[in-house]
């Protein structure tokens, strides 16, 4: 059995007491605010990018930032949460803004922060272009639904009476 070296333990204690390590804190369930629920899910290809990615050191458990280069794709879900995906086989796994893992949420936020200008610009132009087409489609569907509505209401009312 190895002897415990008390003086060495003392040094460790001092080092731990002196360390000022910031704790990573990222809110749960991060979403793009005011994301319209009419949008199913939007997909963006940001192309091949240099980007900063958060890693956890296997030895110390400390966070560090690594530079990577991969094709970055982004999906914004119906509820405004978003996922980053990478194409190449050596790339990281996808990261989600509503992941239960704090590290993944932090990664998603960091990626969004790096590409926010491009993401917002691309999304705004895509949504603007699709807005009119979408509203026309909904009007056509509403027109097709028109005759059914009084009967649906009548069915609803008859279930209240039951």
């Amino acid at each position, binding site marked *: 059995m190895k002897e415990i070296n008390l003086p060495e333990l003392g040094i460790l204690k001092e080092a731990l007491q002196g360390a000022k390590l910031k704790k990573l804190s990222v809110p749960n369930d991060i979403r793009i605010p005011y994301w*319209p629920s009419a*949008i*199913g899910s939007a997909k963006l290809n940001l192309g091949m990018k240099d980007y900063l990615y958060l890693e956890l050191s296997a030895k110390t458990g400390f966070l560090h930032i690594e530079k990577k280069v991969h094709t970055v794709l982004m999906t914004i879900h119906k509820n405004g949460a978003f996922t980053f995906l990478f194409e190449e086989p050596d790339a990281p796994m996808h990261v989600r803004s509503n992941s239960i893992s704090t590290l993944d949420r932090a990664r998603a936020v960091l990626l969004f922060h790096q590409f926010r200008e491009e993401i917002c610009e691309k999304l705004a132009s895509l949504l603007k272009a699709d807005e009119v087409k*979408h509203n026309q489609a909904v009007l056509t569907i509403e027109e*097709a639904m028109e*005759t059914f509505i009084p009967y649906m209401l009548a069915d609803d009312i008859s279930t209240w009476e039951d």
Partner: protein
Amino acid sequence: MQTFIDFLSDLSLKEVKVPEFLKIPNWPKMAGKISVSLGKRDYYYVTKSEETGLLRILWNTKKKQEIIFIVEESGTFHVDFLGSYSTFSSGINDRTVLERIRALLIFHQFKEEIYKMITEKLASDLPAHENVAKIVTEALAPFRKK
């Protein structure tokens, strides 16, 4: 980012609602299940934009599939698209809104023909049950052009 949030809050996107359990009201059970072929033809359908998930109407002019319109005994309906290599189906009671919309729009586009075909079919298949044909005519009447 703030500009983008302003842009999002200014977007006026209409919500689409096609409830499940839609059916042709007052469809008589005695009419049973009826299918009619609309043949191969141009039709419009709704799809979602790959990039934004928003809806858009597209024309299918390929005429590759035969369109079969089927009304079930309960009055619900679905559409089968029969191609040489593949067949797919969209139903008014499907779980996905998009499939319900596709079935609804086929009905909407061809309701006059569907009406005519169904009543003719009933008249020839159920000559002894004239009353059924009459009830079906009445059930489909609200969908006919005024």
